[in-house]
């Protein structure tokens, strides 16, 4: 072995060690500051973690773009969806009077809210765009109560990291981190364009997460759970989306 190649070997070895060590340190820091998404395993974990971490660092306090009333898409598109189940139809027959949003998990006061209760809280509206991962989009006025208002009412515990939310369709649930959950534009939406929220757009209650793609805005919300770990939900990937091959974080 010549001197040159030995030197190269030593430098290369040191560089590799330093690289692995700094990756380890970066992973620890990222874990601590909540920069690692639940679907970070597997071959796409590298890109997914970079996307989620950089978005969390860049967009922690940013607001989704809002539009003028004249920019609202008319008519609003109601995306195709699976047929509504019997539980939904029963509640629909009763005019959704018995629709409940139950909130459990790491909260001080677990509660169940009726639509009337939710509507009695400060009413907020936003004109934002909903974009589908397929490529289409529309703009609508969304009316509802900020999720943070409801979370403040039940009192989230300090260890809480995620809010898991469930549709009345048992195969449809998702989760967001506390940064998105407490975001002022994350709504429990019950109205659209000055009216009730149409069934096709998720009525009577939809979680609206405007800084992420449409599939994070789950329709027909009946249940929320506040948690510090997503391991116990489904396959532990954070939502049904990664189980079907889609990213948990949909900010891009």
């Amino acid at each position, binding site marked *: 072995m010549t001197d040159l190649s030995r030197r190269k070997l030593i430098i290369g070895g040191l560089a590799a060690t330093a690289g692995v060590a700094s990756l380890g340190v970066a992973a620890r820091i990222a874990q601590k500051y909540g920069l690692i998404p639940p679907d970070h395993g597997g071959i796409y974990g590298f*890109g997914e973690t970079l996307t989620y971490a950089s978005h969390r660092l860049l967009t922690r306090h940013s607001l989704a773009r809002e539009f003028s009333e004249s920019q609202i898409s008319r008519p609003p598109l109601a995306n195709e969806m699976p047929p509504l189940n019997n539980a939904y139809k029963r509640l629909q027959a009763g005019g959704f009077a018995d629709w409940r949003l139950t909130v459990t998990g790491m909260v001080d006061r677990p509660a169940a809210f009726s639509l009337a209760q939710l509507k009695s809280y400060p009413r907020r509206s936003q004109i934002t765009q909903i974009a589908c991962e397929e490529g289409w989009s529309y703009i609508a006025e969304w009316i509802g109560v900020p999720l943070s208002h409801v979370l403040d009412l039940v009192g989230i515990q300090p260890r809480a990291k995620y809010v898991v939310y469930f549709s009345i369709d048992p195969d449809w649930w998702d989760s967001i981190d506390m940064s998105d959950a407490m975001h002022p534009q994350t709504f429990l939406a019950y109205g659209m364009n000055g009216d009730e929220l149409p069934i096709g757009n998720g009525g009577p209650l939809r979680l609206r997460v405007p800084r992420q793609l449409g599939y994070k805005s789950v329709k027909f919300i009946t249940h929320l759970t506040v948690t510090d770990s997503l391991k116990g939900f489904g396959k532990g990937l954070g939502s049904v989306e990664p189980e079907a091959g*889609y990213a948990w974080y949909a900010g891009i």
Partner: protein
Amino acid sequence: MPGSESAQVPLAACVASSASTVPSTASTVPVRTVTPRHSALVRITHWITTLCFLALLVTGMEIVISHPRFYWGETGNVLTTPLFKIPIPSSRSLVPTGYGYVLPDQNGWSRYLHFQAAWIVVLTGLLYVISAFFTGHLRKDLLPAESDLSWRGFSNTVASHLRFERPSEAEAWSYNVLQRLSYLFVIFVLFPLIVWTGLAMSPAFVSAFPVTVTSLGGQQSARTIHFFVTIALVLFLLVHVAMICVAGFKSRMRAMITGRMIARRADTHTERT
């Protein structure tokens, strides 16, 4: 290696810029030489970029298939008039394509791989551009010489391309002016534009940097521009590969893989004409 290829020419002698016409020896006999052509960094970043581009292209097409309609402005969906449609079947039944069937949905892994390849190609591109500034690669190999930008120099190169002339031996050692300009265009115009229009489609990214999308006229405009920039990049790829075939597929591939060029080189010729 055959013995005749032994003469190692120092790197400085074969890099492009020196327009020296002074022959290094008095001999006019062509000699076969093995000489460094592309640096390791150029080769590695070239092939990583190639792999990422192909991954981005395939996954991008898969994503487009789920909604093969393009719009201008902020919004667009099946209820609005498209700017244009691609007449192919869709992977989603929402889109009225005129075909009686839908293709398998491949968006999940396509989106995962698209963004992963995007990260890798952006990081690779940054490494390449930053090092190109510091190593002189940009100045020596990419920026055209003043003489090349004269009308005569430029038209000579264009004319020889139009005649489909096999490039002279000299061109194996340096990029000609058309090559330089198209590489610069890809690196400093198309590449930033494809990244920008991609980010402009991200609802989270534009919440922090709204001007990235408003300056393009809206999210759907960004998607449409992203599509056209892709077409420009594919055209570049096709011409790039065609030119390599014209110039000598084996020697150019060898140069980009091993970094070495084996070619006949008359010592007396000027390196760039």
